[in-house]
C-alpha cells in the first residue's frame, strides 16, 4: 500500500490543510442562515464583539450550533474508525451496527417514562442504550465481520419496528421521538450540551491514545500478541470509547448515519494503514463533513430546514461510490 510509505511530513501538511479547511467551513457555517453574515463580520464578532444583533446571533446561536456540528462530526467519525478497525470490516459503522439505534431507542423509552428531564440524564440514557446494543450485537455477531453487520442491521430494524409500534400507541412519546428520529442540529444549540461535548472530547482523546495499540491489533491477533498488546483489554477500551462517542453524538444530534462509514473511507486515502493517523484525520474530516452538511441543511429548502442527517446521506452516498470505484472497497 502506498499510504504506509507516505512520509510523516506530508501527513502533517495534509492534516494542517484539513484543519484550515475545517476553520474555513466553520466560519462560512456561522455566516449562513436566515440572515446572512459576512465572514469578516463573523470573525469580528468572535474576536471583538460589540453587542450588535449580528454579533449576538453569531455568539449565542450559530457558534454553539457550529460547535455541536464539530463535536458530533468528530464523535461519529472517530467511533466509525474504531468500529472499522476493531471489526476489520469496512462496512461497519456505529449506525450499521445498531449502536446509534440503541441510543435513540433508549431515549424514546426514557422519554416515555419521563427520565429525559435533564441533559445529563439524556446523555446517560443514550450511552446506556448504545452500550446495551453494542454488547448484544458483539456477543451475537463476534467472530465474523459479516455476521456482525447482519446482527447490527437486524437489531436496528427490530428497534425501529418496536419504537414505531410504541409511537402508534403513545402519541406523546411519538411527538418527543420525532425530534430524535431524524438527526438534526436545528434547535439543539440552546440545550445544555457541555456534558456530551466533554464526553466527546475525552473520547476522541482516548481514541488517539489507544490508536497505537489498535495499529498492532489491525495486523492480526497473533502479531498483536507478539508485539505485546493486550488484545482483550484494547478491545474492551475501544468498545467503551465507541459506545460513549456514538451515544454522546446521538444525544446531542439524534441518529446521524453514514458519517462513521464515509469519513474513515476518505481518511484512509490520506492516512494509509496507520490507525493513529486515521483517527487524527477522521477527527478533523468528520467535523468538516457535518459542518458542510449543516450548511446544506439550511439552504436546500426554500422554507425551513432539511435535517442534517438527510444531507449527510445525500452527500455521503456519491462520495462513497466514488471512493469505492477509485480505490476499491479497501478491506482492512
Amino acid at each position, binding site marked *: 500500500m502506498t499510504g504506509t510509505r507516505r512520509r510523516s511530513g506530508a501527513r502533517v501538511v495534509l492534516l494542517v490543510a484539513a484543519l484550515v479547511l475545517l476553520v474555513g467551513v466553520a466560519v462560512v457555517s456561522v455566516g449562513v442562515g436566515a440572515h446572512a453574515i459576512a465572514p469578516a463580520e463573523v470573525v469580528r464578532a468572535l474576536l471583538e464583539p460589540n453587542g450588535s444583533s449580528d454579533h449576538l446571533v453569531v455568539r449565542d446561536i450559530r457558534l454553539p450550533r457550529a460547535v455541536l456540528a464539530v463535536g458530533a462530526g468528530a464523535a461519529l467519525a472517530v467511533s466509525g474508525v474504531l468500529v472499522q478497525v476493531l471489526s476489520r470490516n*469496512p*462496512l461497519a459503522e456505529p449506525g450499521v451496527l445498531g449502536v446509534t439505534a440503541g441510543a435513540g431507542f433508549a431515549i424514546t423509552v426514557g422519554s416515555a417514562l419521563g427520565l429525559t428531564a435533564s441533559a445529563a440524564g439524556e446523555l446517560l440514557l443514550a450511552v446506556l442504550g448504545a452500550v446495551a446494543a453494542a454488547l448484544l450485537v458483539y*456477543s*451475537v*455477531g*463476534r*467472530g465474523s465481520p*459479516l*455476521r456482525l*453487520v*447482519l*446482527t447490527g*442491521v*437486524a*437489531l*436496528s*430494524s*427490530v428497534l*425501529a*419496528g*418496536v419504537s*414505531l*409500534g410504541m409511537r*402508534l*400507541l403513545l402519541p406523546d412519546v411519538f411527538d418527543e421521538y420525532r425530534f430524535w428520529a*431524524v438527526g438534526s442540529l436545528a434547535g439543539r444549540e440552546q440545550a445544555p450540551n457541555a456534558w456530551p461535548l466533554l464526553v466527546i472530547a475525552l473520547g476522541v482523546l482516548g481514541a488517539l491514545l489507544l490508536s497505537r495499540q489498535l495499529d498492532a491489533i489491525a495486523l492480526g491477533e497473533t502479531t498483536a500478541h507478539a508485539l505485546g498488546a493486550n488484545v482483550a483489554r484494547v478491545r474492551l477500551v475501544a468498545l467503551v470509547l465507541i459506545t460513549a462517542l456514538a451515544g454522546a453524538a446521538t444525544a446531542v444530534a439524534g441518529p446521524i*448515519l*453514514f458519517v462513521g*462509514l464515509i469519513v474513515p473511507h476518505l481518511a484512509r486515502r490520506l492516512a494509509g494503514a496507520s490507525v493513529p493517523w486515521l483517527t487524527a484525520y477522521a477527527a478533523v474530516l468528520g467535523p468538516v463533513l457535518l459542518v458542510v452538511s449543516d450548511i446544506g441543511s439550511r439552504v*436546500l*429548502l426554500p422554507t*425551513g430546514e*432539511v*435535517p442534517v442527517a*438527510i*444531507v449527510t*446521506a*445525500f452527500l*455521503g*452516498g*456519491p462520495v*462513497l*461510490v466514488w471512493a*469505492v*470505484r477509485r480505490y*476499491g*472497497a479497501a*478491506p482492512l
Partner: protein
Amino acid sequence: MSAVVLRRGRFSANVERRTLLLVAVMALAVAGLGLLGLCYGATWASPAKVFEALGGARGGSNVVIREWRLPRVLAGLVFGAALGVAGAIFQNLTRNPMGSPDVIGLDAGAYTGALVAITVLSGTSAQLAFGSVVGGVVAAAAVYLLSLGGGLSGLRLVVIGIAVNATLTAVNSWIVLRAELEVAIAAVGWSAGSLNGVDWADLRIPFAIIAVLLVLLVARSSAVHQAALGDAVAASTGVHLERLRLQMVLIGVGCTATVTAVAGPIAFIALAAPQIGRRLARSPGIPLLPAALTGAVLLQGADLLAQVLLAPVPLPVGVISTAIGGCYLIWLLIKEVRRT
C-alpha cells in the same frame, strides 16, 4: 446427506430429503396461515364457512371472504414468495447476505419513482406502479453500472448499493419534506409497506408479472445451480455467465418493484427469507424454493399479526416484518454462535 430422485417422464430432480421435508412443512404452514387469514377479520368465520365461501356460496359474509380477505391472503403469499426469491437472487449474485434488494437501494429507488408519480403526476395507481417499477429498474441499473469494472463482485456491489440506497433515501425524505401536507402523509403512510385494503383490481397485473418472472426463473434454475458451483465450472458446462446474471438481476428487480408498486416497500422479508430458508434447509447451493416459501410464511404471518396486534387498528405489515424478521435473524445468529 440422503437424497431423493424425483422422476416424471424425461424430467428428473435430485432433491435432498431434508429440503423435501422442509418444502412440505412450509407448504402446510402457508396453507394453514392462509386459512387463518381467511377466517380472521372483523367477524370470525369458521373454516367450514370459509370453504363454503370459496366454493362460491352467495351471501354477504361470503363476499367479504372472497373479495376482501382472499386477495389479501394471496397477496401475502405471492408477494412474500416474490420478495424471498428476489432476496435469494441478489444474495447469491453478490455472494453476500447483505446484498438483498432492500439493502442495495432497489426498494428506495422504487419508492422514489412512486413519490415522483405522487407529487409530480396525479398519482393514480397505474402511475404509481409504473413509477415504482421504473424507479427500481433505474436504481438497479445505477448500482450495476457503478459497480462495473470490478465485475459483480460481492463487497463492491454491496457498498455501492448501500451508498445508492442512502442517497435515494435522502432524496425521498427531501421530496416528502417539500411536498404538500396531504401528499406527504399519503407518501409516508405508503412507505411503511402495507397490505391494508388491497383488492383484486390491484392484484391482477402484479400477479401476472410475478408469475411470468417465476416461470422464467424456474426455466433458468439449472443454469443458476451450475453457476453456483463456481465461474469456471459454469463456463465449462456451457453457461453464459454474464447473460445469466443480467437475467437474474432483471427477474429480481421485477419481483421487488412489482411488490413495492402495490404494497409499498416491505422491508426485511427479502433480507431474512433466504437466510432463514438456507439455514432451515441446510442445503448447499441456491435455496430458491426454501427462500420463496419462507418469504410467503413470513409475510403472511406478519400480515396476520399486523391485523391482530392493535385490532381494530391495522398496523402496516412493514412494521411487523421488520420486528419479527429481525428477532428471528438474531435468534438464528445466536444459535449459530453456540454451535461453532
